[in-house]
């Protein structure tokens, strides 16, 4: 890639003596170099990000069943259809319930782990690695372990084995929507995978809290433990907490892998927004119009969240600088 450059630099004198002037002009030209550096990325971005977005907005106003070059303009019918007839509104409810479970639990668990690990003197790197390791596991692999081993509905599953020791009957964790045990399966899976990641964020933030604050609090008579946590640690972590919560929300919004593999697309319950899009565009109906309309609605919702995020992050930054 850079062999010519390298050779040129190794022996600069003979090669560059006479044409130095014009070449320097081109090499130092900001406009040319800017496009040289950013060009490949921007072309790719245009083709694979901007074009699909525009195309899908266009498709969402057409009758695009089994075709991606439709000609029959139908206005907002796709939007009407996906908002009334299909599972789409239900999927937004599923997301809301899921987020209500997963966001607070992950926040609390990752903060708790960070606080514990931060206090360790021995084997700190070891424990940090243990909690962080699940981040390497894919949702598919984890779904497989959860579905076929831990929460297997028959007797040999780990959860059923454990509750069996206490004399309880076996529970069909996933195949039955009432009572909704499947939430336990789904939520514990995601907790296991993502808590270590957010623990790292909290650890970094904890180490940025100035020790003088704790010393001052000790002089003022604050008790170690709850009081210092409540009045020093927690307020100092506010910016990180806000960021973590919004990251968690956006991740929950895009949940697909574990729902697809554990619940399945044929179930009538726990269908996430992306699963509904997948089914409407790539399932048997191949309705790209309705699928695109759903994508547009989801994108708008995410934009809204991102804008709110920007606002909150701004507040967070202001607090930090105080």
């Amino acid at each position: 890639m850079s062999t010519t450059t390298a050779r040129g630099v190794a022996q600069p004198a003979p090669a560059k003596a006479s044409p130095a002037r014009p070449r320097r002009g081109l090499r130092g030209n900001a406009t040319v170099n800017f496009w040289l550096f950013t060009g490949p990325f921007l072309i790719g971005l245009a083709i694979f990000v901007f074009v699909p977005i525009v195309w899908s907005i266009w498709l969402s106003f057409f009758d695009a069943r089994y075709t991606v070059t439709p000609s029959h303009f139908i206005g907002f019918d796709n939007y009407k259809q996906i908002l009334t007839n299909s599972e789409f509104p239900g999927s937004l409810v599923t997301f809301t319930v899921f987020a209500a479970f997963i966001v607070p639990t992950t926040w609390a668990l990752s903060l708790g782990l960070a606080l514990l690990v931060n206090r360790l003197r021995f084997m700190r790197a070891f424990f940090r690695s243990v909690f962080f390791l699940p981040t390497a596991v894919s949702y598919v692999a984890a779904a497989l372990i959860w579905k076929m081993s831990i929460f297997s509905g028959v007797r040999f599953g780990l959860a059923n084995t454990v509750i069996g020791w206490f004399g309880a009957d076996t529970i069909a964790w996933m195949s039955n929507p009432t009572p909704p045990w499947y939430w336990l399966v789904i939520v514990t899976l995601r907790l296991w995978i993502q808590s270590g990641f957010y623990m790292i964020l909290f650890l970094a933030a904890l180490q940025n809290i100035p020790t003088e604050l704790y010393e001052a609090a000790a002089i003022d008579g604050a008790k170690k433990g709850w009081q210092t946590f409540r009045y020093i640690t927690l307020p100092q972590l506010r910016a990180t907490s806000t960021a973590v919560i919004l990251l968690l929300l956006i991740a929950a919004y895009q949940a697909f892998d574990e729902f697809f593999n554990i619940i399945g697309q044929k179930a009538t319950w726990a269908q996430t927004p992306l699963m509904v899009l997948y089914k409407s565009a790539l399932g048997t109906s191949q309705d790209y119009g309705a699928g695109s309309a759903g994508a547009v609605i989801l994108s708008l919702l995410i934009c809204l969240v991102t804008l709110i995020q920007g606002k909150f992050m701004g507040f967070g930054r202001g607090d930090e600088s105080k």
Partner: protein
Amino acid sequence: MTTTAPQIGKQRKKGRGVFGNTGLYIAVGVAALLFLIPFYLIVRNSLSTDLEITGENWKVLPSFQWGNISELFDDPTVDFGRSMINSLVVAVLTTFGTLLVCSLAGYGLARIPYKHANKVFYAVLATLMVPTAVTFVPSFVLVSSLGWVDTYRGLIIPGLFSGFTCFLFRQYFLGFPKELEEAARVDGLGYWGAYWRIVVPNSLNFFAAIATITFISAWNSFLWPLVIGQDPSSWTVQIALSSFMTNQTVNFHLIFMATAISILPLIFVFLFLQRWLVQGIAQTGIKG
């Protein structure tokens, strides 16, 4: 991290005795055991026979059926070896491609004084508002009309142009010491030469962090390969695992051996590159 270690030591000396520490280590130890259970289950089940897995009484240790490995790769129903190769090709090429394209663009946006650079940057920022996962329907429409379904191109190229990675590189290069590049300029290097000979060699830690994160997410990605990989010959390992779960015949020992093998490369990546990974997440994760 090293700088804070003595402070933490100081904090701890006051007030917490042997019992406080014991309690702390018990709490951490229990949590660690819970976090390790799924790994234990993978190892135990992958080296057991089906009868041992589904038996009435819980067997703590497997009977170490190493033959499960060759049985998995010889299984005619799912070509697992092929899917591992596909995943490796896709993850490696995605990582190199993303690093190349996004780092160049990030450098251009951060350092080259072009008068419309800010406008271009805002256009890149705008793409961060719409996550790629949500636009998979239109992306699939585009890629299939290019005829890229079931190809490496279709699996790799659409994922290279990550606005977020470009953004991370730009933020990083903004903080890169200007003096080094100015020295290179004095020595007669242009932007291109300074980038490859000065900037990149001095940024290897950051490149390693981004590479690790990119490789892991490429290896683990599911939705896009599911959409693109219609034919089993183009399945990545995640799709193969998923198909194991929905198959009519359930061979527990093979399924878990496949899971174990699919996780193994990432465990290695983790063990060797964890330092960069942790640094990278601490530096960049918060901006996501």
